[in-house]
């Protein structure tokens, strides 16, 4: 599957702000897509598209905070940088509590926004890389037989082959064979690596 390139999405109802942001981001070599309303953005947005979002708080119709809520409902992880000319502390706190990456008050310096956009893009890249990694681990886990999975769970608890054999009621040799299959299927070079993999996919 071809990987999508990162895009900075800008949603603002003010034509002048939208255009100046588009020019600013373009001047920094960033791919940009703009929308004049939350509805326009949401009708086209694919959560698999990497990037970040620069979002106005106050817009007619659906506000920026309402749009953030809708993105959360959809499971979108795109970092959101709110911009507003009329921000207050309760509004900023609400946005941050709901996962905003940043909250910037107008007027702001061009460089200030560009720095935050770059940080947001880096965060998105790192997050998506972690997600791909955990997806790969889950795929490998799914390829294990039920017995191999049992062996995996016990060895990653720190149990020796002999103890695992006793727990499962099989010979130590059988455990060794299952364990070798587990290491191969999980593409793990060591027990420590296997433990790290299990920790990466463990529920928080």
């Amino acid at each position, binding site marked *: 599957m071809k990987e999508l390139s990162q895009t900075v999405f800008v949603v603002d109802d003010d034509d002048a702000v939208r255009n100046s942001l588009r020019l600013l981001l373009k001047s920094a070599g960033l791919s940009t897509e703009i929308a004049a309303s939350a509805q326009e953005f949401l009708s086209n947005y694919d959560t698999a598209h990497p990037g970040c979002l620069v979002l106005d708080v106050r817009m007619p119709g659906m506000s920026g905070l309402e749009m953030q809520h809708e993105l959360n409902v959809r499971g979108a992880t795109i970092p959101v940088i709110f911009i507003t000319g009329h*921000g*207050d*502390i309760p509004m*900023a*706190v609400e946005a*941050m*509590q709901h996962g905003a990456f*940043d*909250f910037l*008050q107008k007027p702001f310096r061009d460089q200030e926004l560009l720095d935050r956009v770059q940080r947001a893009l880096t965060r998105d890249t790192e997050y998506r890389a972690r997600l791909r990694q955990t997806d790969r681990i889950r795929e490998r886990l799914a390829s294990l037989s039920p017995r191999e999975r049992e062996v995996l769970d016990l060895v990653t608890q720190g149990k020796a082959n002999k103890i695992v054999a006793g727990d499962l009621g099989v010979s130590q040799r059988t455990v060794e064979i299952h364990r070798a299959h587990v290491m191969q299927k999980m593409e793990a070079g060591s027990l420590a690596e296997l433990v790290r993999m299990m920790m990466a996919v463990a529920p928080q």
Partner: protein
Amino acid sequence: MVALDHKGSEGGEHGETERVRTIIVAGQSSQRTRAVLRALRGFTNVIWPISLEAALAQSGSEDAGCLVIADDLREERIDDFLQEARELRRNLPIFVITDPDDVAEAVSAMRHGATAVIEIPPSYAVLCEEVARAMQ
């Protein structure tokens, strides 16, 4: 350092079997701290006055219910403090009291792990609601 009961006097008896968690107020005798203590006068087991360092040590205790940072601190110091507190107790509710309209400070505190940021003078209702929720 003293614990106040709901009338504001020192001490405070608690049931032997029920653990009462503490509200740690980091702040000296500043106007902010006094405003926070007024807002929290209905709560028992408020610990104050306390320095940031002492607050950090108290935050590690199992009895710590929440932490209210009332002192007027420079941004870098509070951000470092929040990070340290988060490393110590990941789920401890931490409330930061800030100047009115200082959105940048509020955002920075939230990014560094504050549960919520409340403007001074802290509204009795808002602070009580946040702290009560944290103590549940």
